[in-house]
């Protein structure tokens, strides 16, 4: 065996560690060794570990090219910058995967500040944190997370973007700048009095995520992922219930709004007075019900059998977790109506249980007594829920949206869903839509001009008599549309003032139009009895 070549063969790969210099003096012998190492192992991927490779000449390049011909999926890792430069100049980096050597970082003794499905986050110094991936072969994951975090940032979601990839033990980590931040779990655990503040910030961020429209194809579709869980579950549920689970998820319409996918309080950081999202690798698009399934699991689901789970994971107790969940659900849906809250919670649980059961089974949960008991508990609940659930859809009472006229269709569809739910007659639906359009476009055009701000649209439906209330809120310039003089519609067209007609129509259509200015907000309430 030559000093320059060390071959390790596992079931997964042929790893060839090269060291020193590969030039015309030894290229021939190196080539003989590497070709002998791969001979007869054509099915295994071949990786050159170049950690100790100092120099490569053209004779060495030829060795690599020949190896590539017998091992088409050849990749080279741990390449130092000099060797990388040669490989890059000569076009080898385009022919095969060439990975640079990474700075080595130790997390020994570092504070763990976050933990997600795919990795753990440690603070390595006062300004920087590193996310260490569970998967040893994490470079593709890191690349993915960088990419989705960048997409999120461009779309206006405050998040930290990694600026470096490092080696941590046998795995990889990505390094982020995160100055003096503390995660929401820590705040909740150490300052129970800040519960309501946490709920407010957490919910606002959640609405912001769900209000973000993602260009098609940029992020994976959560519905497809959930369908995968449901199909897996068919083997573990009675036929009727299994089919129903799949058809319930199939019936959720495609939604191009963002969801985080692992939105728990360890993934929300307070840095100064800014709230930042981290752990972006699960970012997807889809209906918010999929998000709630995962949130339910984080705070309650995983701890239903063993209440200590949430304490171990988040640092606060099960009671705190339940309270937090309920408050977030109420704040998000914009209602305290217990019936409505439980209804949405049950829809979230349907997907949540499917996910947890599948996860536990895949992690050999059925092979231990505790695992079996947990799976039995969740399966029982899931079957009961499937009997009483006919749709996974729910309506929020409130939406926050960028005040831009392009976003009007989303506002109208939001209102439309509520009107449909209370069986509002078609003619009235159209009239209400006209009024809503007038108000929203007005905010879009004038409230923040020339800048763009947010608008909140709230829909309340009261029963007996059925009354629809629409509330539009913006933080823009104070403006009372009700004060605007009605246009003189008796004048011939050419003599009329342009404008003012919209609010006039709104007043005509609705029973009541009330303007208020409070806390720096324009609040316009429209009421209509059906």
């Amino acid at each position: 065996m030559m000093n320059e070549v060390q071959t390790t063969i596992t079931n997964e790969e042929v790893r060839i560690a090269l060291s020193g210099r590969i030039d015309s003096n030894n290229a021939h012998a190196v080539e003989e060794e590497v070709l002998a190492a791969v001979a007869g192992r054509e099915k295994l991927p071949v990786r050159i570990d170049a950690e100790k490779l100092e120099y490569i000449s053209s004779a060495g390049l030829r060795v690599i090219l020949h190896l590539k011909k017998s091992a088409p999926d050849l990749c080279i890792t741990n390449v130092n910058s000099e060797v990388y430069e040669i490989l890059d100049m000569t076009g080898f980096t385009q022919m095969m995967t060439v990975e640079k050597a990474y700075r080595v970082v130790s997390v020994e003794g570092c504070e763990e500040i976050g933990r997600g499905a795919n990795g753990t986050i440690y603070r390595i110094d006062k300004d920087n944190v590193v996310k260490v991936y569970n998967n040893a072969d994490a470079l593709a994951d890191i690349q993915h997370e960088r990419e989705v975090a960048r997409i999120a940032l461009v779309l206006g979601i405050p998040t930290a973007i990694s600026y470096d990839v490092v080696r941590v033990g046998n795995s990889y980590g990505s390094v982020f700048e995160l100055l003096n931040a503390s995660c929401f779990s820590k705040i909740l655990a150490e300052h129970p009095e800040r519960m309501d503040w946490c709920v407010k910030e957490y919910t606002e961020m959640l609405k912001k995520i769900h209000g973000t429209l993602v260009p098609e194809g940029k992020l994976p579709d959560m519905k497809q992922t959930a369908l995968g869980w449901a199909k897996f579950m068919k083997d573990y549920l009675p036929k009727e219930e299994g089919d129903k689970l799949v058809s319930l998820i199939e019936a959720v319409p495609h939604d191009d709004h963002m969801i985080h996918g692992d939105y728990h309080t360890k993934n929300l950081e307070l840095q100064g007075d800014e709230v930042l999202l981290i752990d972006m690798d699960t970012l997807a698009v889809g209906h918010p019900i999929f998000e709630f399934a995962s949130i339910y699991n984080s705070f309650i689901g995983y701890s239903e059998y063993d209440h200590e789970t949430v304490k171990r994971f988040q640092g606060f107790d099960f009671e705190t977790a339940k309270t937090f969940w309920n408050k977030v659900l109420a704040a998000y849906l914009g209602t305290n109506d217990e019936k409505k809250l439980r209804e949405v919670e049950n829809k979230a649980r349907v997907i949540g249980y499917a996910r947890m059961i599948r996860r536990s089974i895949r992690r050999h949960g059925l092979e231990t007594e505790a695992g079996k008991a947990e799976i039995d508990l969740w399966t029982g609940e899931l079957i009961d829920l499937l009997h009483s659930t006919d749709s996974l859809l729910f309506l929020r009472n409130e939406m926050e949206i960028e005040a831009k006229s392009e976003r009007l269709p989303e506002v109208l569809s939001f209102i439309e869903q509520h009107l449909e739910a209370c069986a509002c007659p078609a003619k009235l639906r159209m009239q209400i839509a006209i009024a809503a359009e007038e108000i929203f476009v007005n905010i879009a055009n004038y409230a923040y001009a020339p800048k763009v701000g947010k608008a909140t649209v709230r829909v309340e439906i009261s029963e007996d008599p059925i009354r629809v209330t629409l509330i539009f809120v913006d933080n823009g310039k104070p403006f009372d549309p009700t004060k605007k003089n009605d246009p003189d519609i008796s004048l011939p067209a050419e003599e009329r003032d342009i404008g003012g007609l919209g609010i006039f129509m709104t007043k005509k259509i609705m029973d009541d139009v009330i303007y208020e200015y409070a806390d720096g907000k324009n609040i316009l309430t429209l009421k209509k009895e059906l």
Partner: protein
Amino acid sequence: MKNFPKKIDLHMHGVFSDGTDTPAELLRHIKETGITLFALTDHDTAAGCAEVRRLLRYGDPDFLSGVEFSCKDGQGQYHILGYGFDEDAPAMREIFEKGHGYRVSKLRRRLDFLKETFGFSFSDEDVASLYAENNPGKPHIAKLMVRYGYAESISDAICRYINQFHTKSEYILPEEAISAILASGGIPVLAHPSFGRGDEIILGEQMEGRLRRLIGFGLQGVEAFYSGFSAKLQNEMLGFADRYGLYVTAGSDYHGTNKLVRLGDTNLPDGGNYPAGLCRFLSELSDRGKIRC
């Protein structure tokens, strides 16, 4: 439209330089590989070409005589290939002798060095057979050292011992090689251009400067298809060939078992649908009656 050979390899070495195939073995391997046009390009000698030509029979692949000169001047080192020359032309004979003389003198100094520094000596018979080699180089001495147990392997012999010998060697100048090839009716081509003497990496402006200098001496072609070239190097070279109207050739640099390069491995797609520079090269040789196509 000419009917070009379907699979070609124009750069290989046999026992007359540092390869391991005898002419008969080489011909057999060429036929096994399905190559339809080949050139033997030993270092500084065409002795093997005459042998190969004697062995050729009706129906055998087309053969082109070739040579590879190792050249050096104040600006660097170059390997220059010559194709289709008259092997007996005085200009060729002169340069072969000159090259051989340099090598023999180098061999003598190398053997002296090994004896003085490490105490390695060989039987008179083995030394005589080294001198009898057409082109005795590092591998020949190294092989002998392994046989005598002075080194574990050829590369060990070369790295640990032979390369300790540093001397100002005499080399053929690139303009000498190019002029000799031209004067004997051949076409001079720069071997593995991006790799210089074989162990450098020369790209971009530096490569272009080198080419312009050699074109000034009469260089007519570049080996743009080479077993060790990535697509990027190949494309850069094809670009230079276009810009300067150079011929294009394709070669593996096969050395038998002395290198693991396979015959025919030139990165040139088979089939005869070749880039313009290569078509012009083949047509020119065909017009001169050196190959049939």
